[in-house]
């Protein structure tokens, strides 16, 4: 089903090649801003949370990759949920004979935003080259697993965030809130003081999305990290499913 939906999207989107240029320019601008911010921090410090400049750039590349996934799949999919709950059009979605969560989550593919994924991985690769580091095959596998788990964690955060719309109907701009909070994932979690570190590891687990994959790639964490990441990913998915179910029950129950 997802493939069918995406085929239609991609066919539409391919007609708007200007969007690719705009998307790429936008991403490059954001990357430039992020690198300049990093340069500013490193103007006054030689390490950030124990990470040196190019290590943090590796992490920044991972951040951009995940942002690409968010913009290409999550925001156009589940990101629309809050607005639909408010306008009532969610009922149309729920009437379909498919699993609502799967449909809502993956109904759209903004294919041009996948350029962020390419650019992000490119930045990571470049930073690794500047570090003079060639990750061993185990580290690459661990990275891939951690990155996949990171996608699931980010997805789970979106589900939890959007589910707020079922209880607080007037909160339309939840997706903007995600951007603000997720910006914390641009830096290694060790760069933050205790309170923020706790927030980003346990409460809004964005540390797992960028710090862990980047650490696996640069060898800061061993390949066994992949197991931890996989577990976190699975737990996150299950929690997201639970939250979705509870929210849906409330929604359909209220209107009767």
């Amino acid at each position, binding site marked *: 089903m997802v493939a069918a939906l995406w085929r239609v999207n991609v066919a539409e989107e391919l007609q708007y090649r200007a969007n690719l240029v*705009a998307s790429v*320019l*936008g991403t490059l*601008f*954001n990357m430039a*801003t992020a690198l*300049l*911010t990093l340069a*500013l*921090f490193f*103007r*006054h*410090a030689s390490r*950030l*949370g124990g990470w040196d400049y190019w290590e943090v750039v590796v992490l920044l590349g991972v951040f951009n990759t995940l942002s690409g996934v968010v913009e290409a799949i999550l925001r156009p999919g589940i990101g629309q949920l809050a607005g639909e709950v408010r306008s009532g059009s969610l009922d149309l979605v729920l009437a379909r004979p498919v699993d609502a969560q799967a449909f809502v989550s993956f109904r759209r593919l903004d294919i041009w935003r996948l350029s962020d994924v390419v650019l992000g991985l490119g930045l990571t690769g470049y930073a690794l080259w500047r570090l003079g580091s060639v990750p061993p095959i185990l580290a690459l596998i661990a990275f891939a697993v951690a990155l996949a788990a990171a996608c699931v964690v980010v997805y789970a955060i979106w589900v939890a965030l959007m589910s707020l719309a079922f209880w*607080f*109907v*007037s*909160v*339309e*701009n*939840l997706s*903007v*809130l995600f951007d*603000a*909070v997720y*910006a*914390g994932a641009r*830096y290694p979690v060790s*760069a*933050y*003081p205790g309170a*923020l570190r706790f927030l980003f590891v346990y409460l809004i687990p964005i540390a797992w999305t960028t710090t862990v994959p980047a650490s696996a790639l640069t060898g800061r964490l061993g390949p066994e990290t992949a197991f931890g990441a996989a577990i976190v990913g699975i737990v996150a998915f299950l929690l997201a499913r639970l939250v979705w179910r509870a929210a849906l029950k409330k929604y359909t129950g209220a209107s009767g």
Partner: protein
Amino acid sequence: MSGAGAWARRYWALMRNAWLVDFQYRAAIALWLLWGMMEPAIALGIWWGVAGTGDVAGYGRADFARYFFAVMLVNQLTIAWDSWYLDRWIRNGELNFRLARPLNPVHEALADNLAYKARSAGFLIVLWLVVAAVWPPVRLPFDPARWALTAVAVALAAGMRFFISYATGLTAFWTTRATAIMELHAGLSLFLAGRIAPLALLPPAVAGVAGVLWFSSMLAFPVNLLTGAVQSTEALLRGFAGQVVWLAFWFAAYRLAWSRGLRKYGAVGG
């Protein structure tokens, strides 16, 4: 059942309803405040680590804490968001029925802006007081004269940012990529307005540009005034002068964009 019991139940229902509506409303405001607090909180977190037990260009941990709390407050009091919906209105034709109204839409926008700030400012000030009670670094010396001056600077900055937002939104009359202009401005102001770091930490040339243009007037000056980083009368006068000049500039830019833009909009039959 007696009349009194029925009335009691009605009032209970009405009050509960009012509370729920109010609650939704407050939840929305709380989320916007949370959104506004994240960027300064993250920046503070990083600089806190960088400063360590020493300082960075004269800023120690406590100085950073005071600076970024001031940024949170001043940003909430000066923020404007009109560029986004103006761009949308112009592109999808929603501007038309608003033009038919007797009052220029800018008045409603300004009123809405002020109302939001009135609501959220109180909350933030209370939050600062609570945090200051338990966390010494963010405490400010009791200085009503300075606070009064800050209020003036905040008002000037708020006016300026309102017209910047409005004018950049109106560029949608001429381009479909008005949001790109807004993003460019936001990206520049991240550094030049002092959102990511106090201007003293920027390379001197960059900080100079911020001072010459409107960026330092829109956030950094009121923030530095509040935290006490602006001390001399000369710096004070220079700051206020800059604010007045740039407020006038952006007001003129708005007027120009509005009159020229409407002419163009009307010509196309919009």
